[in-house]
């Protein structure tokens, strides 16, 4: 079965953000800060404006006249008034007839900047873990601390204590398509088409930055050439709209790949300490400490520290737990979400540590996880009850795979196991509109397909299940934020769950409405006969065309609106001592096995085989689900082995390009065995759990554990480049 967008994509027939164009559209370019920290003394755009082809150039000074009176003074305007917080921060923008002219003009801006001290790395702020009271700093965006049980007592009673310090690298989402949008201003309406994972999110952010009411901002998604979390917030839309307002013409704005590296908010480095107090094979206590580089993020925008830190404690029964973390403010670009934000890094630390505990004691790492791993009803450190959770069954499957591999793979092969968990519920809600016409069912949503298949395949599969129509008769009808129903966005592994439930709700209502029009009692289903939609009830068939009212005939069909706003989880407030922690919703396990060979003279790691066991709840569409798991593993292998942003002491990115930022090629991706555990149900359609993020989470941990198994050497820093492995092997 071929996905409905496959042929179109292969032919280049779909319009992605980068393909957007309009008659007379200008090309915009951002004028960006050459320093990571400074005070802007003067912005002179005269030489930009006089350059050939330029229609307009705007900076902070122009905001007041471009925006409706009194609207421009927002808390965080599009262009900074004085302080520059990171290299590449947009200071001004120019629109010209051609991209080349706009680029040439942008380089002519005259900027006077007073340099300020640069905090490039976490260590520039905290050379080591801050002691009590030392964490008070203007360079802290957030401080979180939570405790469960008597942690000090646990360490006092322990037979053994195992400690580890881990470092993780910055990574970027690197979608094939960079951010791109096309903006125009029609009277009071600020309209933007954008390659976005969240039209309503982009609308909210644009409204906040520009100070324009949300209703006056209209966002329409294009096809999205990959998002991976990087296209979930407004980024280019405000600049493009400002340029369009100044030029009184449509403006196209698109990032170059190098700009994509610097401006797309992504994961930054971290330092993680984990220590566990052990008595026999019980974990009496665990302390987790996290210094997370959040770059030039604004206070209140930190979502990661209090969320991710729980993943370091792991899905394990632990007597007493203390979690403490700082969101460290540096002069790198702001931190942002990246497929399972910061979880692969946390789980790398946590699962390396888990293996270190087991290996030091001579236990089988898999059995140790079976003994200590959560089961439904266990309690998290923050006091949540664990819901249906497929961890134990997934570990059983992993054991079988491991035994088979041991027979099949040569001696010296390293086998590594890692367990990830994730929260994939439906608490971020949404709505859809179903439109049944005489010949098709249209799922109207603001959401674009971003490549995962969650929209074009997932939502259609749910509509198939609920109505009985074949997929060929169901179509996604994309609409904009002015006309379409609200939805939170295609992110957080929530699309199939939340929006799928909304489709289910709408489909049920649609069938109920049709049932009112066809006398009888039995179940009503839809089918297609000779290209026409037909309602079937008690063996009798009635065409949808004949069921339409006059007004429905005029407006295009029977409408049904569906909605789903799922429940969130709850944590025990008394466990939180400082800062914001978040509850999990659907507990979703991912158990991975990696088989590697390590060149003991060079440190080169090759992944020979990989197995991913997914806790799916229920699989709605097997090929799409499988593809998500395979893609997650491939992405995780990059995070494990090669991907790393390199920053110098001036907080300047050293490798903003695909030559030295190394994503895996097909030659680095081994055969992947995908197994699915079903039955531990989540909140999605028929019990489905989200599938997009979990498969990336355990990969760096599984690879690191496999390298340790092969060589006895433990690499505690991501990624596991040949040189890092060589150092762990003491070759240098």
């Amino acid at each position: 079965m071929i996905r409905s967008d496959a042929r179109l994509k292969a032919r280049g027939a779909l319009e992605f953000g980068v393909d957007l164009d309009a008659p007379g559209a200008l090309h915009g370019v951002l004028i960006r800060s050459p320093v990571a920290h400074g005070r802007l003394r003067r912005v002179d755009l005269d030489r930009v404006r006089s350059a050939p082809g330029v229609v307009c150039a705007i900076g902070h000074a122009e905001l007041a006249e471009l925006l409706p009176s009194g609207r421009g003074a927002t808390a965080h305007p599009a262009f900074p008034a004085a302080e520059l917080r990171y290299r590449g921060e947009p200071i001004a923008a120019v629109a010209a007839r051609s991209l080349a002219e706009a680029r040439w003009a942008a380089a002519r801006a005259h900027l006077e900047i007073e340099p300020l001290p640069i905090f490039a790395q976490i260590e520039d702020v905290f050379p080591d873990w801050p002691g009590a009271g030392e964490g008070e700093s203007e360079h802290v965006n957030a401080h979180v601390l939570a405790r469960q049980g008597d942690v000090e007592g646990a360490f006092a009673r322990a037979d053994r204590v195992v400690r580890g310090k881990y470092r993780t690298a910055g990574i970027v989402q690197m979608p094939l398509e960079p951010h791109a949008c096309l903006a125009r201003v029609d009277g009071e309406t600020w309209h933007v088409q954008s390659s976005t994972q969240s039209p309503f999110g982009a609308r909210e952010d644009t409204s906040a930055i520009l100070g324009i009411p949300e209703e006056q901002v209209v966002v329409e998604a294009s096809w999205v050439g990959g998002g991976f979390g990087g296209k979930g917030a407004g980024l280019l839309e405000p600049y493009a709209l400002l340029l369009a307002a100044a030029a009184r013409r449509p403006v196209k704005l698109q990032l170059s790949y190098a700009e994509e590296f610097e401006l797309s908010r992504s994961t930054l480095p971290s330092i993680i300490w984990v220590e566990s107090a052990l008595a026999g094979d019980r974990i009496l206590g665990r302390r987790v400490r996290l210094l997370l580089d959040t770059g030039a993020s604004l206070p209140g925008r930190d979502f990661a520290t209090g969320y991710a830190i729980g993943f370091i404690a792991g899905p394990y029964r632990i007597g007493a737990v203390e979690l403490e973390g700082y969101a460290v403010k540096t002069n790198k670009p702001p931190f942002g979400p990246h497929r399972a934000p910061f979880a692969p890094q946390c789980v790398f630390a946590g699962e390396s540590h888990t293996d270190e505990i087991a290996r030091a004691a001579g236990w089988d790492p898999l059995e140790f996880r079976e003994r200590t791993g959560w089961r439904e009803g266990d309690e998290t450190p923050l006091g949540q009850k664990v819901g249906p959770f497929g961890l134990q069954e997934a570990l059983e499957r992993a054991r079988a795979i491991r035994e088979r591999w041991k027979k099949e793979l040569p001696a010296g092969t390293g086998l590594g196991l890692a367990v990830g968990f994730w929260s994939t519920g439906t608490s971020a809600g949404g709505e859809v509109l179903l439109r049944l016409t005489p010949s098709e069912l249209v799922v109207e949503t603001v959401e674009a397909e971003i490549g995962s298949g969650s929209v074009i395949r997932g939502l259609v599969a749910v509509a198939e299940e609920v109505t009985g129509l074949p997929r060929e008769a169901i179509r996604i009808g994309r609409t904009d934020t002015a006309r379409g129903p609200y939805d939170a966005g295609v992110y957080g592994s929530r699309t199939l769950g939340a929006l799928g439930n909304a489709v289910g709700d709408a489909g049920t209502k649609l069938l109920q409405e049709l049932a009112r029009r066809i006398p009888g009692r039995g179940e009503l289903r839809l089918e297609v006969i000779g290209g026409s939609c037909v309602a079937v009830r008690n063996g009798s068939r009635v065409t949808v065309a004949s069921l339409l009212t006059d007004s429905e005939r005029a407006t295009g069909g029977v409408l049904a609106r569906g909605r789903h706003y799922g429940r969130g989880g709850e944590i025990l407030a008394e466990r939180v001592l400082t800062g914001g922690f978040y509850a999990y919703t659907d507990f979703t396990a991912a158990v991975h096995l990696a088989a590697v060979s390590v060149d003991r003279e060079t440190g080169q790691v090759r992944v020979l085989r990989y197995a991913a066991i997914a806790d799916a709840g229920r699989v709605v569409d097997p090929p799409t689900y499988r593809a998500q798991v395979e893609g997650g593993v491939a992405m995780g292998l990059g995070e494990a082995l090669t991907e790393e942003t390199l920053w110098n002491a001036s907080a300047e990115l050293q490798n903003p390009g695909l030559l030295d930022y190394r994503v895996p090629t097909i030659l680095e991706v081994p055969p992947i065995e995908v197994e699915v555990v079903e039955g531990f149900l989540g909140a999605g359609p028929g019990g489905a759990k989200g599938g997009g993020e979990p498969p990336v989470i355990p990969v760096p941990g599984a690879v690191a554990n496999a390298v340790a198994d092969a060589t006895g050497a433990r690499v505690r820093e991501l990624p596991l480049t040949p040189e890092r492995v060589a150092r762990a092997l003491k070759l240098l």
Partner: protein
Amino acid sequence: MQLLAPTRAEEAIAALLDGPEGRVAVLAGGTDLLLDLDEGKSSPEVLLSLHRLPWRELTWEAERLEIGATLPLAQLEQDPELARRIPGLHEAVGAIGGVALRHQATLGGNLVRASPVSDLIPILLALECEVGLLGSGGERSLPLEQFLLGPRRTALQRGELVRRVWVPALPSAFRWQRVRPANDVSQISVAVAFAPKEERWRIATAGVAPLARRAKAAEAILRGPSPGEEAIAAAGASAAEEAEVRQDRRATDAYRRHLLRTLVLRAIRAVATGVGGQPA
């Protein structure tokens, strides 16, 4: 920018001589040059493309291979004789970039660009290739070592083009190390060849400053077709010692030196035992 694509060699040479001095860029596969153009590092007035010239020969002679300057590397790689007769060149060509790039890149372009990270230059140095240079006065030939003057610098004179390369068919091997095995720039690459008639070993390394070069002190340690392990180890140590190793974002100098020693050993052993191919 003007694009010229002559079909005859004389036209190409004339275009070089007639064009504004220093403002004519010669385009072969373009895999390196186009990056410079895109990044604004180079802004020639004339782009002289060689793609319509009939310079794609691949001719086996008794003891050597003649390769036309614009033959795509993929065609060289696919030659059925290459792996057997010049195994080191086969290994090196197969290691360059990705498949798509190899269909575009050329041997001539690789030499003229004289990139410090070229994976082809070390094997061609170890094999002691000759380069044929075509100018208005005819063709002259130069040993590769004299052709390469430094990074991005060659002995090409105004009005000259690389026409062909003659590669001696010798037992040889090529070894490399990269952060990502496929389609990455090598941290270190090493080529070794053995010339049976002279009983001479030749070792060349890349990833060291400033351009790929021979490791002649190491070569001198090796004697005969089957040097012992002790001599091989000494040659590896010598190569690591005599190299000017650099430190950059791809590797530290300590790791490069370690790799150099390791890969020199591996390449010598491969030639001495007649076992080709970098293990996967």
